[in-house]
């Protein structure tokens, strides 16, 4: 019998202009490609990655949108966004590049508890 895979929570905290934002997505997609149960949590400046209408070409960068929208296709269905980080920036949940569930601090604590491994990028 195949041993059960350990679940992974990737926490993405960097703004879309940072290479780290892409590197966090890369890890989530790589893990999902191996069949690992992956969830993603966007918090702090990482929530800005989810906003539509970004013109990354103006700063000579590739858009993150394609990588973000690949998450559900790779089986990363559980995408969360920190409610507090949104509120700090005056943002409302919804109208994001992909469906993300807004979570409060108690729910984030529960996410940390329910995943076998947590990586913050």
């Amino acid at each position, binding site marked *: 019998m195949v041993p059960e895979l350990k679940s992974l929570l990737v926490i993405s905290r960097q703004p879309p202009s940072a290479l780290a934002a892409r590197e966090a997505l890369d890890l989530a997609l*790589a893990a999902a490609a191996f069949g690992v149960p992956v969830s993603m949590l966007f918090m702090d400046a990482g929530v800005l990655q989810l906003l539509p209408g970004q013109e990354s070409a103006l700063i000579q960068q590739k858009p993150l949108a394609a990588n973000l929208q690949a998450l559900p296709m790779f089986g990363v269905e559980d995408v969360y966004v920190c409610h507090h980080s949104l509120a700090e920036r005056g943002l409302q949940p919804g109208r994001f590049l992909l469906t993300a569930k807004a979570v409060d601090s108690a729910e984030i604590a529960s996410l940390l508890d329910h995943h076998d491994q947590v*990586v913050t990028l």
Partner: protein
Amino acid sequence: MKFAIALLAGPQDPAARSALKFAEAVLAGGHQISRLFFYRDAVHLASTLGVQPQDECDLAQRWRAFIQDNQLDAVVCIAAALRRGVLNEAEADRWERPVANTGEPWALSGLGQWVDALQTADRAVTFGT
């Protein structure tokens, strides 16, 4: 206990030193390190070209000696390394660059190696941001 240790920060970040001290303590405590994974700016530790003032600690050299002395599996993310100009002979040839600056004991490989390490370790610890 089997530990997987990932380092994200470069040689100038205190996390690079903390991670080394932690790794040394893991082995000193009788545990194993199943894999070291170097991501983001930590790939610079695999470069042999850094030159430190003689009276300062050469952290890249310390890491290299630690890995060699203990025959550890040390994987450097290939995508992160290529972006930052850390190339072994094969990659320098492939991309037609004039010099290679890394090699044994470091292995350039993909993020899948970290995913694998996260699955097989009893404890996975990440240093740096």
